[in-house]
């Protein structure tokens, strides 16, 4: 198999527990090069945890996570850092550096890893900020930004290096319809012009349909359904029917695992 045909990210038999809870139970996942893949699933199923496994922020109990030919859980710190220089990551809570203004936040990865002339840094940073509509906010501090603005700055920072792989953890949260459009366009442009592979975790099906090539539905520690967004949205399996239909009852658990409800409320006389 030629290198470009093999998936950029290949997860095999991923198993992880956190505390008493089984998060992944033999999860398999392939992300083809140059694709935009969405990972959807109920809150608390482990979507963020999956992204953390792919980037080596967490190690699984068992299983393999191959990214561009290296098995992430086995990498030493230096190799992991070398890999991360080629990965952009948008944190669910933006995670901007509060010591620096917007411009320096976006410039941070450039300044750390490349000795570029100031002129060039300026051009790159302003281009990225322009792409998210915040060039004018370059000198604001993170505390002066709204939630949606902070997410767009974090997005600009994640793409400043034109990485080979970008992981977006809920990029559409807190965006107004115009900003949402811009961000969707940006994700697609990055993918089409630079061939950047993207993995995005999102809850907004309408937005996902407009960018993603494939959607994986994560529930109960496994990928329970995968396919093109429209295909999945039609909801032919029980999983997709329930999830995209937004029903509480079905195979996808809406409730965090809990004991008997009546017992907790004391209706069976136990709490008297």
């Amino acid at each position, binding site marked *: 198999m030629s290198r470009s045909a093999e998936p950029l990210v290949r997860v095999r038999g991923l198993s992880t527990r956190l505390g008493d809870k089984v998060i992944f139970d033999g999860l398999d996942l392939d992300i083809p090069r140059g694709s935009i893949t969405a990972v959807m699933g109920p809150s608390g199923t482990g979507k963020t945890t999956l992204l953390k496994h792919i*980037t080596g*922020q967490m190690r699984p109990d068992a299983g393999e996570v191959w990214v561009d030919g290296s098995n992430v859980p086995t990498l030493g710190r230096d190799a992991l*850092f*070398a890999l*991360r*220089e080629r*990965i952009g*990551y948008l*944190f669910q*809570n933006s*995670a*901007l*550096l*509060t010591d620096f203004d917007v411009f320096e936040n976006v410039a*941070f*990865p450039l300044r*750390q*890893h490349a000795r570029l002339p100031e002129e060039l840094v300026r051009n790159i940073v302003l281009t990225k900020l322009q792409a998210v509509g915040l060039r004018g906010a370059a000198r604001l501090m993170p505390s002066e930004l709204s939630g949606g603005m902070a997410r767009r700055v974090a997005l600009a*920072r994640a793409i400043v290096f034109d990485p080979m792989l970008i992981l977006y953890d809920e990029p559409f949260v807190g965006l107004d319809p115009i900003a949402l459009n811009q961000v969707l366009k940006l994700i697609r442009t990055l993918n089409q012009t630079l061939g950047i592979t993207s993995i995005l975790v999102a809850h907004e099906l309408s937005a996902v349909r407009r960018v993603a090539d494939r959607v994986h539905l994560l529930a109960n520690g496994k990928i329970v359904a995968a396919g093109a967004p429209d295909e999945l949205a039609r909801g032919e399996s029980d999983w997709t029917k329930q999830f995209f239909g937004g029903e509480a009852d079905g195979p996808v658990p809406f409730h965090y695992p809990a004991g008997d409800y009546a017992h907790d409320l004391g209706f069976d006389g136990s709490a008297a």
Partner: protein
Amino acid sequence: MNARFLRDGYVTDALAQIGAAGLFFFTILGAVPKSLRHFRETVRQIWFVGAMSLVIIMTCGLFVGMVLALQLYHTLSIFGGTAALGTVVALSLFRELGPVVTALLFAGRAGTSITAEIGLMRATDQLAAMEMMAVDPVAYVVAPRFLAGVIAMPILACVFNALGIFGGHLVGVTWLGVDNGTFWGNMTANVEVWADVINGVWKSLAFGAVVTLIAVFQGYTTPPTSEGVAYATTRTVVFSSIVVLALDFVLTAFLM
């Protein structure tokens, strides 16, 4: 009772914490060469912790010197030895009070803010974000603050001593009427650079290292919650105070 202590893990937890802090110390040392590449950050931190603590150090130094002179004048006059006032004030400051009080004040002023700052960076995922950008937070955030603490502490102690002697002079000479020439003459004749002044500097360096190590360790390992950060800052002050006073005893015994 003892068994309960062990079972609940207080003792083992405490030992594990000390061990982890010790390992963290070596991690920081390992990251120092890398952190020197952005030395500007260290300079910024020295300025920061130094400037932050300067006012409180100067004020306290002045008052400690004044109180020292009052108390010692009273005691010395019993033995008719008020001529030694300058010497005794200076020796107490250089050898003991300067390094110790500076370290305690530093822990309360700069140490807590270092802990809170790093703890909040942890709680808001800023440290994780750095790791994701392939930047080692120990080299970028922790080591510069650690170096800054080690460098700033002796300087602050010197400032404390200077203000203390000034305060002692104010009370002893200006107020209580000790002869100006005697005050300075005896002091300069009896205080030795190596045995007294430099000994104090060694102490200060050691205190700077432990107080800042405790502060950065507490911040770096804090649970990522507001409660966690609150407890961590408290622990910085409590642990620093205990360790500084205990270490002071050990160092004094060795350096005497």
